[in-house]
């Protein structure tokens, strides 16, 4: 019955990719109810809403064949855009890793005036249409802006450089790290810390030895998600990037250009590569995370 609940399609696109033996293996172990129901719902929904359109996309990119695929991707301009997108996304993730952890920490652990307001602000980058965020950031960092006015005479050019691209990416993915770490931090048992404090441990030692391992899986997830989001960001970046070929042209813009040329297969090909890269990163993160969880379970 779950197959027909959501969406216009029947389950033949979604439910297939977990083969029956898997289900059997699970059934033997479970204590809790609801596996069939929740898993069925998850797979059906994922199939209809996410995998079906993606399959159509990959099907489209397959139209040009391997040769065509290779030709699209091996062009120096496309490669340069991948490199830029990757580097900028890494910088953006680093910014968010530091800022996000700090914010999650002070929002959960400390009390200060305006705390609720700051807590609320954190989600804003998601609610703002990305183009608006892009225009606002460019207004700040351009030579005439509040920041650019000071930075540019000092020789620091942000707008229309890779730094600007990274800042736009960082802005649009701010909530990820904060909001994944925050709930875990809130649920942490403070008695352990309390005990270590009374035992005379230094705050940083407590953080490193006790808290960090506890939040590490969530933290890593937050960073990986921020990175994945940065890879695909378009709206905010194009305003601040300057879009010079080989210099500040992001991969998503090349996809957009191919679409403007009605060249769906080429656009899909570039998109498919970004997709595969993101998938690999997310997968690796999830493997790492699972390992940590297992180690912790073994330890306790």
């Amino acid at each position, binding site marked *: 019955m779950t197959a027909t609940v*959501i969406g*216009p399609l029947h389950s033949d696109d979604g439910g297939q990719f*977990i083969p029956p033996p898997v289900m059997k*293996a699970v059934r033997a172990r479970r204590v*809790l*109810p609801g596996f069939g*129901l*929740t*898993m069925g*719902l*998850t797979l059906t929904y*994922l199939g209809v*809403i996410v995998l079906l*359109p*993606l399959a*159509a996309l990959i*099907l489209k990119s397959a139209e040009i064949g391997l040769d065509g695929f290779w030709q699209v991707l091996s062009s120096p301009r496309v490669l340069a855009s991948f490199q830029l997108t990757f580097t900028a996304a890494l910088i953006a993730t680093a910014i968010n890793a530091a800022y996000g952890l*700090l914010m999650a*920490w*002070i929002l959960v652990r*400390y*009390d200060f005036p305006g705390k609720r307001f*700051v807590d*609320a*602000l*954190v*989600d804003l980058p*998601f*609610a*703002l*249409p*990305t183009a*608006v965020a892009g225009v*606002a950031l460019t207004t700040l960092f351009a030579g005439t802006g*509040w920041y650019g006015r000071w930075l540019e005479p000092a020789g620091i050019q942000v707008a229309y450089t890779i730094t600007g691209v990274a800042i736009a990416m960082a*802005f649009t993915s*701010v909530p990820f790290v904060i909001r*994944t770490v925050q*709930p875990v931090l*809130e649920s942490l048992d*403070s008695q352990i810390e309390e005990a270590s*404090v*009374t035992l*005379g441990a*230094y705050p940083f030692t407590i953080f490193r030895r006790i808290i960090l391992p506890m939040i590490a*899986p*969530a933290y890593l*997830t937050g960073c990986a*998600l921020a990175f*994945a*989001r940065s890879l*695909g960001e*378009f709206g905010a970046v194009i305003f601040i990037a300057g879009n010079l070929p080989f210099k500040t042209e992001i991969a*998503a813009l090349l996809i957009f250009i191919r679409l403007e040329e009605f060249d769906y297969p080429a656009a899909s090909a570039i*998109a498919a590569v970004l*997709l595969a890269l993101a*998938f690999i990163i*997310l997968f690796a993160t*999830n493997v790492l995370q*699972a390992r940590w969880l297992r180690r912790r379970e073994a330890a306790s």
Partner: protein
Amino acid sequence: MSMAALDPARAFPQAAAVGANGRTTRSGQRVLITAGLVLTALFLVAPVAVIFAQAFSRGFAAYRASIVQPETLHAIWLTAVTALIAVPINMVFGVAAAWAIAKFRFPGKKTLISLIEIPFSISPIVAGVAYLLVYGSQGLFGEWLADHDIRIMFTPAAIVLVMLFVTSPFVVRELLPLMQAQGSEQEEAAATLGATGFQIFRRVTLPNIRWALLYGTVLCSARAIGEFGAVSVVSGRIRGETNTLPLQIELLYNDYNAAGAFAAASTLTVIALITLLIKAIIERRIGGAG
């Protein structure tokens, strides 16, 4: 108040003040808070301030006029309705997926999680195009849909669909780390005592995950309301019919009505802040009751 319970600095004052390194902790705390606030001011508040500054650059009357014009009001209404449909669906999906993944062992789990996360990394425009490739006239089901006179693309249904796509990972992604960190001993105990699945969920799991669920929902709503790229591809941008607020903002901006565009954008900021205010109120209520 809930925050007191969650905030060890208050709940356990000795941790902050009486500990062996009481003084360093205190000053360290001050340094961290200051750093966080300064960075937030520079990084988050300033862009928002720019938006409001531009929005009011032609005075309050112009600000009001650009918001109360029927097209903008319709865009706000449409955005709210579509988000109100998309968000609850994704809450149900998020809870179900998190339950299946966190409470059971099965092969392919990591792949499944990664697949769920994929929409984060997809350029929204690509997401929109992917939907065109399925439901558009020349898409996979285009002919079948045309034969049955069902139109999905360029209607509000298409907007809902891409919103579902773009925001589908949020609730799962918020719930999962927490549910995994908490383990399932409590639920298993309840199950051995004969509780049904839904009872376990409501009485045991839900109280434990309510913050994360709330965060996930708020993020999901924020993202749904603000989504531009994917919606722009599938909405058809028919003014007064399928123009959402972010699309309306672009339209105004293109008309050299930057003040109007930013005014409309500022309403999104206000909507976001209201959502968050509601969150804070719920937090206090639940915190007070529990």
